[in-house]
């Protein structure tokens, strides 16, 4: 028998191992990896076709379009978060780990963000360019998405954790998750629009940052509790 390392060390170890495992699973399933990004690209490119190719018109809606697409792309990939683990029994193993579930759930949420949120952040300037977003708003768009998309993953995780045990979930996931994520969408899109009009956006960033702080500290706890209920 090996000597057990100190608890802090192995909690960190379990956190890193869970993060690595989820990233590994995602990279082995290329479809799951590409789906949210492709969805994001397709939705954004449809707007000029459906609304109007007029640059003025597109400029006006560009911030909202990118933000709504980011929200939908994040929701689309949420189901992968716990579904497979629930079905193959890995979730039970996760719940029975002596390590705090808070950090294991946080690791899974971070993996989800790295897979679905980060690519959206990286691609957003390209799409902003397609939608004639004014140059001065680029950084605001990227920064709001950078702060906002992790909140989408963290709050989304609560909804998936609650519904993972249900056979047919349908719209219930959206009904649970959307009210939680709506404020992020409103403030994120508003910040970008305000920059275009030359208005100050410090307060928007403060609010988004506060949301991220709340989500980071509370959402994994709620997800962990919800997972215990779902497995029960």
């Amino acid at each position, binding site marked *: 028998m090996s000597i057990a390392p100190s608890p802090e060390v192995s909690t960190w170890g379990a956190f890193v191992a869970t993060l690595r495992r989820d990233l590994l699973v995602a990279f082995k399933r290329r479809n799951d990896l590409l789906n949210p990004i492709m969805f994001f690209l397709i939705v954004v490119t449809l707007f000029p076709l459906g609304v109007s190719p007029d640059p003025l018109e597109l400029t006006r809606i560009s911030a909202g379009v990118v933000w709504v697409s980011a929200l939908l792309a994040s929701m689309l990939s949420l189901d992968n978060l716990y579904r497979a683990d629930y079905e193959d029994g890995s979730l039970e193993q996760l719940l029975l*780990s002596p390590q705090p579930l808070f950090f294991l759930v946080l690791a899974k949420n971070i993996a989800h963000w790295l897979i679905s949120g980060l690519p959206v952040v990286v691609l957003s300037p390209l799409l902003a360019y397609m939608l004639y977003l004014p140059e001065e708003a680029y950084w605001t768009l990227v920064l709001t998405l950078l702060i906002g998309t992790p909140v989408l993953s963290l709050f989304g995780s609560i909804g998936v954790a609650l519904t993972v045990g249900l056979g047919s979930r349908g719209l219930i996931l959206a009904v649970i998750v959307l009210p939680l994520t709506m404020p992020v969408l409103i403030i994120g899109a508003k910040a970008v629009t305000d920059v275009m009009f030359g208005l100050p956006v410090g307060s928007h960033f403060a609010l988004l940052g506060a949301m991220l702080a709340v989500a980071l500290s509370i959402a994994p706890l709620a997800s962990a509790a919800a997972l215990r209920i779902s497995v029960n």
Partner: protein
Amino acid sequence: MQVLGSNGSGKTTLLRIICGLNDSYEGDILWRGIPVTAQRETFLAALLYIGHRVGVNRILTPRENLRWSASLHTPVDDLRIEAALARVGLKAFEDVPCRNLSAGQNQRVSLARLLISPATLWILDEPFTTLDVYGVRELELLLAEHIAGGGSALVTTHHRLNVPCAVERLNLDGVEQPL
């Protein structure tokens, strides 16, 4: 201890309650004389549970699965993992995705967890179902070694356990059936 009972008599439910996966019970669960609710982490550190759903990700390889399982409890190095996989008859399958393995082989991946874990209490739900005769023999050997090493095991099975130690039997039907 072997838990017996007809289908639907609550064998799996009992095991899940003991693990803490199911909280719809009355009474106390004690581990070494102390309620598990008062020492959740100590109890979980001593526990290894393998359920119906074996907890093996089908996209990952046996090696990756075990590495993650171990890290949730006590991390082990790759040599231990390879040795454990060889012991359960999965040598040369270490890096094959689990979806390409048979049900019995996936069960063996989960059983390899027993070899890399320092847990003293094994809770196994129907561990023999998909194993072939050699696998059954091997698992009985593992159980015997575990008991001889001072560990304990709680197993549900209809199979007649052939282990060189005393087996307590708990029959959930209340009636003693001939084995």
